[in-house]
Structure formats: structure tokens, C-alpha cells
């Protein structure tokens, strides 16, 4: 371990500083006052170096990147102070014309949404060639040749033909590669990537980040990655800026930040994410509370209200001070952390959680040969329209015992959400049965369906659109109480709403609020209270935490666990985040392109996975530990998820599988037993 620590990551220190941000302040004028979105931000990036800026939403990480590009929304946003020195020039003093020559030419940018950051009506060749012709004055032939070169560089095969295609011909991952090609087109000295992989699946995310880092090294480009994902930071960053409430909380090398954090916020962040590389703790540690409102930030240390180590000195504002070589922390007690005199309590590993006396006799939910096919019209030519069948869910079977949590993981398009919607009967299955508590509800209608609806509830992904904006929180929660006459009187309904609100950690007075007056985490709690109002026994949780910030995620996961214990609930937990699923589930189902690949209890699946897809998924997910990440051989999954419109023959995974041979192209593997409760659909294991 010490050897790995001592080994210099790279000789970054010798390469010249390309960007130096000095005491940057950004203000936004809003109708309710001035929001100080960035305050006193300073950092440097060297050529060939990867800097990660980490923080939760609203901490100022994206705004500071936009300020460097001078792309702040005007007139509301403006740089109120500081200098941005790029390659010897202060960008803030350049004329708009001179700045235009810097953008795209010397600083490239890659945005979060690959689906919307390419112009859908122009072929991608034109979009790559445009900066070349404008900035470098290339003629069409030269630009074309360079575009071909760039597509090869970012790993797109058959570049000549692909250049004439439009963005909709490319998958999300491919579009992000095109965006990177555009960003690198003019050989910039700096590339800024704002959440470049947040919208992508985990196996694709690994490919893109690997590509970006390699290119940065090879082309000697400085790379700034803005992200909220600590795993990405550990795997790819050389240096890290942790931002909190418009300020830098801590900055240093990745090793400093992960192995020897000196700011309680950094520590809290790392301890509040469920981790694949650690034994599961009893409860997730969370950072309680919410980040401050930047319209009226608290005096003194901004993190103090949520900090477990605060003392009198925290009422004064801490300055960003050295606590190690090149390692700075904005905490009064940084030295105590650095010398190890002060440390948060160790996380207790969970001694095999007392199995929830799961009733093994009859499963609460038993899904058999469930199928859902959607008919999609595809236009083939001007008038011809062919109907194509999408097999969103193709013959899957699993069961859930009373009191357990079944995790359902997979990448986008694997059909996991459709499974949830089928069980909720928001969709009617094409075939198969869904037995709930001994009754088949696959084709239930009318009263029978209504009876079941009371017992099966849902928690949705997006806390913003899953609550009716025109109803108060109280009305939303009370509605089922009145419709099903669960409360004898209006008075009783009000009391029950108050009870439900406190059950999910909100205050009864919040019943009068409208959803838009609450934060994302609070809204998700309202969604949970709404589900609980029906007194269900089974809840389908469809990505309930994926839209939330890291520190809030932990709070919601703990809440779900507490409720399960207290009310004896059974969960189907659908998610794409392997670490979250591992944390909360008793058993896990892995899906790929409408089929189940592997089913096992949690520890078996994560400890000894059998299916090559499960292995690849676990391999692709970065963990927040730079040592583990460096020790790991890059074994990423090649290729893209095939289109569900034309799935591969035989095993659906064979196109990306390292073990695949001719048999896999022919035979559809059955899900077979490979140990007690461990099922796998692969003919090679």
C-alpha cells in the first residue's frame, strides 16, 4: 500500500500550468436577490493533467466552468471578481471576438446531454468540420480528412460513412464520442467536460472516461471533469476540487482526498455513498440536513450546520489553508484531521444482518414467464410503414418473499422499468402470470384490480414530476384516505397525514406546502408518504434515489430500510446503480435486453458472480478508492447495447461477451440453478 502511495502517479508537476483561476466570484441576479454562485474559487490545471471538480447540485461547479468559457447566462450572471489566466492571458479581459477565437480553438467543451448537444438536422461530419474551417481556416478536403482522423481517434469505426450520418443514427455513447471529437478538433490545450457520462450506462461510461483520459495524456491536453460521482474521480482524476455551497471545501491530489480527507464534508460524502468495495454497514452514514440557500448563506463555515465536528471557531469563516503538501482544506480543524487526532467513527461492518425471518413458504409475488411486447411503427420509405415488435420483457420469472427486498439491475433499455410497470399493472402483460399473494393479477380488471392496487404501491424516480403540482402535500397524501375511506373523518385524515409526514421525516406543517416549495429529497419523502397512505404490503421502487444528490440519497435509502423494518414491507428495488442495489437488496436480479441473466442473493452475486455480463457490470463500476482503482486492470466491456428493435439471436449478450462462441449465437440459454438460490442464464458457466 505504501509502495503504491509513494509511486508518483505521473510527472504532472513538471508540465506547465495552462489554466489558473484566481479568486473567482460569480454572481447571479435573481428576482429574490443576488445569488453568489461561486465565491473565491482558485485552482490551477497543468497540461496532461486530469482535474475533477466534485460537488452536489448548486455548489457552483458547472457555473465556474461556464465562467471560464465566458458563457454565463446573460444578463443575470456575471463574473464579479477574480482572474482566469489561460495560457498567459486573462480571459476576462479579452474582447468578445478574441474570446470567440479561444472557445473551440483553444478550449474545448463536452456537455452532459449527448442527446441534445448535437444539432439533429445536420450530419455529424459537418458539425465536426465546422470548427476546423472556422478556427483553422481549413479547406473542405482538409477538414474532411481531419474529421476522419478524429473519429478514428475517438474509436468510431467506418468513419468515412459515419460522417454523413445524422445524430439520430448514433447511440448515446457514440454521440458522446462525437462530442469529444468536436471538443478535440482544433487541438485545444484544455478540454472541459461537464458531467460527460451522467446520462450514459455504466459500461459505456467506463469506455468514454477511459477514452478521455487516454487522449488527454496522449495529446497533452489539460482535462477538467465536472462530476458528482466519486468513483469516477478516484479512477480518473489526478487532482480534485471538492466544492460545497459556492466555495472550495478541499483540494488536493486524488490520493490526498480519498486516503486522507481533511474536510468533514469530503468525509461525509465518501461515507454516505453505498460502496461496492466495502462490507455493508448497518446504516448508511448520512450528512443530515440540506445545503444552504445561496441567497442567504449562513455566516461562518457554510458546512457547520450539517457538521458533526463543529465547535465555537466554526462561527468564523475558515480560510482555505494547507494541511499537507499541495493539499488544502477550508476547515478550522483540518490539522486535527490531517494528523489523525480527530476522525469520524469507523463504519461497523454488518454482521450478517439478521435474516428478516423471511417466510419461505409461499412467495408474496411470483412472476412466471412474463412477457411484454410493444408494437412500434417504423417508417420504411415514404409510404411504407412496417410494424416492428420490441420485446421489452421476454419470458422472465422470479419471485419475492415477504419482507425481502429484491433488487433489479440493468442498463437502460433492459426492460427493468417495464417489469415494474407490469407488476403495478400500468401496462398489461402480453403473456405470463403475476401471482400476488396467491392470485394472478396479470389480467385483473375492475374491482379486483382496485383491491390489489391498495396493496401494491409505487415510488417513482423523478421527485419533480411525480407529484401533482396543483395539489398541496396534504391533499396528495390525504387523497387515497378519502377515496378509500381509510379515515373516518376529515379530522382523522388530517391526523393521519401528519402521522405519515413524521413517519417519513417531514414536519406536519409541511402539509400545506406545494411540491415546488420543497427540495428534491423532501419531495421524494412526500412520494413515499403517499405510497404508505394506502397501507400497502408491497412497494415497487423505480430508481427512487437516482435523481437525488449523493448526501440526500443516503437519507432516502435509510428511510426505506427503516420503514421496511417497522412496517414489514416488501420491496422491488429497480436501479442502475450497482452499489445502491447491493446495499439495500436481499436478493438481486440482473437483466439485459429483456431477459434475466443472473439471480442470486446479494453476497453471492457481488462476491462470486457467474454470468459474464454481471462480471462486466461490476468491473465497469468505479469505486471511490484510488488505490483499488489503480490496481485494477482495465477490462471494460466492448461495444454498445444492441437495439431492442433487432436483438441478437441466441444469447442476447453474445455480441459483447468475451466467452461467446457459435453455440451462443444459436441457443437461447435457459435460466438454470447453479447453487442454492443462484440461477444463471449462460451455457458457458
Amino acid at each position: 500500500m505504501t509502495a503504491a502511495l509513494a509511486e508518483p502517479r505521473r510527472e504532472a508537476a513538471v508540465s506547465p500550468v495552462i489554466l489558473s483561476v484566481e479568486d473567482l466570484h460569480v454572481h447571479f441576479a435573481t428576482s429574490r436577490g443576488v445569488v453568489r454562485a461561486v465565491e473565491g474559487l482558485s485552482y490551477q490545471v497543468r497540461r496532461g493533467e486530469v482535474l475533477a471538480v466534485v460537488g452536489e447540485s448548486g455548489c457552483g461547479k458547472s457555473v465556474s466552468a461556464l465562467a471560464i468559457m465566458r458563457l454565463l447566462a446573460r444578463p443575470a450572471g456575471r463574473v464579479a471578481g477574480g482572474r482566469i489566466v489561460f495560457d498567459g492571458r486573462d480571459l476576462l479581459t479579452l474582447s468578445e471576438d478574441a474570446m470567440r477565437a479561444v472557445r473551440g480553438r483553444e478550449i474545448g467543451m463536452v456537455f452532459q446531454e449527448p442527446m441534445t448537444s448535437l444539432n439533429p438536422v445536420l450530419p455529424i461530419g459537418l458539425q465536426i468540420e465546422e470548427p476546423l474551417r472556422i478556427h483553422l481556416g481549413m479547406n473542405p478536403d482538409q477538414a474532411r480528412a481531419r474529421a476522419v482522423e478524429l473519429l478514428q481517434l475517438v474509436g468510431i469505426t467506418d468513419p468515412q460513412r459515419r460522417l454523413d450520418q445524422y445524430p439520430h443514427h448514433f447511440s448515446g455513447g457514440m454521440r458522446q464520442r462525437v462530442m469529444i471529437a468536436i471538443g478535440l478538433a482544433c487541438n485545444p490545450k484544455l478540454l472541459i467536460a461537464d458531467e460527460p457520462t451522467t446520462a450514459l450506462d455504466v459500461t459505456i461510461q467506463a469506455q468514454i472516461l477511459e477514452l478521455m483520459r487516454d487522449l488527454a495524456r496522449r495529446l497533452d491536453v489539460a482535462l477538467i471533469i465536472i462530476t458528482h460521482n466519486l468513483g469516477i474521480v478516484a479512477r480518473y482524476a489526478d487532482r480534485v476540487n471538492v466544492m460545497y455551497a459556492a466555495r472550495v471545501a478541499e483540494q488536493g491530489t486524488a490520493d490526498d482526498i480519498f486516503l486522507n480527507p481533511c474536510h468533514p464534508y469530503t468525509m461525509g460524502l465518501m461515507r454516505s455513498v453505498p460502496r461496492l468495495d466495502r462490507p455493508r454497514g448497518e446504516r448508511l452514514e448520512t450528512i443530515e440536513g440540506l445545503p444552504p440557500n445561496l441567497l442567504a448563506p449562513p455566516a461562518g463555515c457554510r458546512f457547520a450546520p450539517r457538521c458533526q465536528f463543529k465547535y465555537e471557531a466554526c462561527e468564523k469563516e475558515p480560510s482555505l489553508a494547507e494541511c499537507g503538501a499541495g493539499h488544502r482544506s477550508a476547515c478550522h480543524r483540518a490539522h486535527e484531521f490531517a494528523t489523525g487526532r480527530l476522525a469520524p467513527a469507523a463504519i461497523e461492518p454488518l454482521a450478517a444482518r439478521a435474516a428478516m425471518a423471511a417466510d419461505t413458504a409461499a412467495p408474496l409475488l411470483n412472476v412466471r414467464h412474463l412477457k411484454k411486447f410493444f408494437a412500434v411503427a417504423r417508417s420504411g420509405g415514404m409510404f411504407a410503414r412496417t410494424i416492428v415488435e420490441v420485446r421489452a420483457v421476454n419470458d422472465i420469472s422470479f419471485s419475492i418473499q415477504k419482507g425481502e427486498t429484491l433488487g433489479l439491475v440493468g442498463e437502460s433499455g433492459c426492460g427493468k422499468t417495464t417489469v415494474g410497470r407490469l407488476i403495478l399493472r400500468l401496462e398489461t402483460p402480453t403473456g405470463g402470470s403475476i401471482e400476488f399473494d396467491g392470485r394472478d393479477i396479470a389480467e385483473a380488471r375492475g374491482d379486483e384490480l382496485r383491491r390489489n392496487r391498495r396493496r401494491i404501491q409505487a415510488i417513482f424516480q423523478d421527485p419533480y414530476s411525480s407529484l401533482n403540482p396543483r395539489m398541496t402535500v396534504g391533499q396528495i397524501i390525504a387523497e387515497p384516505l378519502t377515496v378509500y375511506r381509510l379515515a373516518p373523518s376529515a379530522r382523522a385524515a388530517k391526523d393521519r397525514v401528519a402521522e405519515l409526514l413524521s413517519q417519513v421525516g417531514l414536519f406536519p406543517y409541511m402539509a400545506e406546502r406545494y411540491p415546488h416549495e420543497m427540495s428534491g429529497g423532501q419531495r421524494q419523502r412526500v412520494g413515499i408518504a403517499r405510497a404508505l397512505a394506502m397501507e400497502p404490503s408491497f412497494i415497487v421502487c423505480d430508481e427512487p434515489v437516482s435523481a437525488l444528490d449523493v448526501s440526500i440519497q443516503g437519507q432516502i435509502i435509510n428511510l426505506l430500510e427503516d420503514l421496511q423494518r417497522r412496517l414489514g414491507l416488501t420491496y422491488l428495488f429497480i436501479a442502475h446503480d450497482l452499489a445502491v442495489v447491493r446495499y439495500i437488496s436481499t436478493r438481486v436480479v440482473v437483466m439485459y435486453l429483456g431477459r434475466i441473466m443472473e439471480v442470486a442473493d446479494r453476497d453471492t452475486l457481488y462476491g462470486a458472480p457467474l454470468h459474464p455480463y454481471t462480471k462486466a457490470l461490476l468491473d465497469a463500476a468505479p469505486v471511490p478508492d484510488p488505490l483499488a482503482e489503480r490496481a485494477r486492470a482495465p477490462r471494460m466491456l466492448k461495444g454498445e447495447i444492441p437495439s431492442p428493435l433487432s436483438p441478437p439471436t441466441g444469447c442476447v449478450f453474445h455480441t459483447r461477451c468475451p466467452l461467446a462462441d457459435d453455440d451462443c449465437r444459436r441457443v437461447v440459454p435457459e435460466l438454470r440453478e447453479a447453487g442454492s438460490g443462484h440461477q444463471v442464464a449462460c451455457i458457458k458457466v
Partner: protein
Amino acid sequence: MVAEAAPALPRPARRSPVLAFCLAQPLGAAGAIAITAMGLAAVFAERVAPYDPVAIDFGAMLAAPSVEHWFGTDAFGRDILTRVIYGARTALAIGFLSSLLGCTVGAVLGVASAYFGGRIDMGIQRLVDILLSFPIIVLALVVVAMLGRNLVLGIDFNLILAIAVPTMPRVARVVRSAALSIREMPYIDAARVQGFSDARIIFRHMVPNVAAPYLIMFTAAIAQAILLEASLSFLGLGVTEPTPAWGLMLSGNASDFYREAPWMILFPGLAISVAVFAFNLFGDSLRDWLDPKFKV
């Protein structure tokens, strides 16, 4: 269990929504004041207006604006201020009733179209297409020509119908698209998962969320209806003499005398413009105001 953010943001004190609207939307408030003034003038026309709107005074024909006749008089010596005030009654009554009719029918068609989908949607939308393919004024002329007059309590109901018909398809389109996007919202899924009936989902969850486009369309429709009523009256197919109506005041012998007596067309024309402008301002501000994201 520990709550997230114990003392969250202090809740803003509830203040009168009227005051809040005026502060947030000053232009809309100006429109609302103009509309209220017109409404009051229309309701209390008998008390406000200085003369009888149909009384002919040959002694004061084509009199210029003066202390006795602020807006002057027309070719029959009738006081123009009085007739503009009474004209507001006609304009608002016809504008309000025809918009209410057109928008409500349109909204019902729109929500039904979105909710049921399939053949019902197809049928309704093709009907809407047909109606949309006619210019507004032509469609209104056709209805008036076909139905003739139908006076009840001094109001020509066929005229209201003629103005409502062109309003309807536009509202149906807008409400349908709003309802379509709302039908796909997760909170509608949530309501279905809770086992609520179709009627409850439509009226409790969908309708309040299309109320905003409905109200905005409604205020815009009143402005359009006032203009349409004025146009029809100007063409002699709307309100008939001697009923005071703004459009009517612009036609007839006003066109013979406007050189000598420009006030004959100036004031009714101004009244039309102000009314239309006021409703449009108000409707615009209402749109911003009703968007829950703008409200704090």
C-alpha cells in the same frame, strides 16, 4: 428518524393574491384595471353615461368634443361617449358569452380527445382541422348567414354562436396538447397505481393542470371575440342599429363624415383597441402567473 433541514426556508406570509399579482405583473394589472373599468361602465351604463344612447338631438349633429359632449356627437346628434359606454356592454356581453361557449366546448373536446385517444381523437381532430381551414371571419359570416338572428333578452344568440364556432377548434388543439403531456406525467401514473377512477383522474388531476392554458385561451378569445363582433357589426351582420356597438359606430354614415368629424371613428376605434390590448396584456400575464414554477 431525523428530518432533513429542520427549520427550512421560512414560509412567505400569505398575502392577498390580487396584490401579489399586481406586484409581480404590473402590465397585467394595468390590463386588469382597464378590463374592470370597462366592466363597471358596462354594468352601470345607465348611471355613468351622461345621455340616452339612442336619443337623437338634431341641434347637436356632428358636434366636436366639448364640455357637454366630451367625445363629440354623431350624425344624429347622439352623444359618442354615451354610446361608447353602452357599446362596452354589447362588446363585453357578446365577447364573454361567446368565448365561454367556444372555449368550454373546445376544452371538453380537447381533453376528451387526449384522454381517450384512438378513433375518438382521430374524429375530433379531423373536425378541428376542417374548422381551422377557414379564416375566422369567413367562418363567422357563414354561421350568421345560415342561422339569421335569434334575439333573446336583446342579445343575438346566433351572433354569439357565430363568434364561438371559430374559437372552438383553436382551444381544442391547445388543450389537447396540454392534456396529452399531462397524461404522460408520473403523477398520473401514481394516481392510476392508487386505483383512482378515470373520472377522478380526469377531473382532479388532469383538468386543474389544463386550467392554465384554458384561462389564457379564454382571455385571448375575449379579445378576439370583441374584434370579431366589431367586424361583423361593421359589415352589417352583427349588432343592428340603434343598439350602440363599437363596430357599428365605425360603419354607416361614419364613413361619410369622418373627414369633418374624425371623433366619430376615433373614439369607438380607440375603445376597440384598448379593450383588445387590455385582454391580451392580462392574458399574457396570467400565463406567467399561473405557471406554478414562477410562483414562490
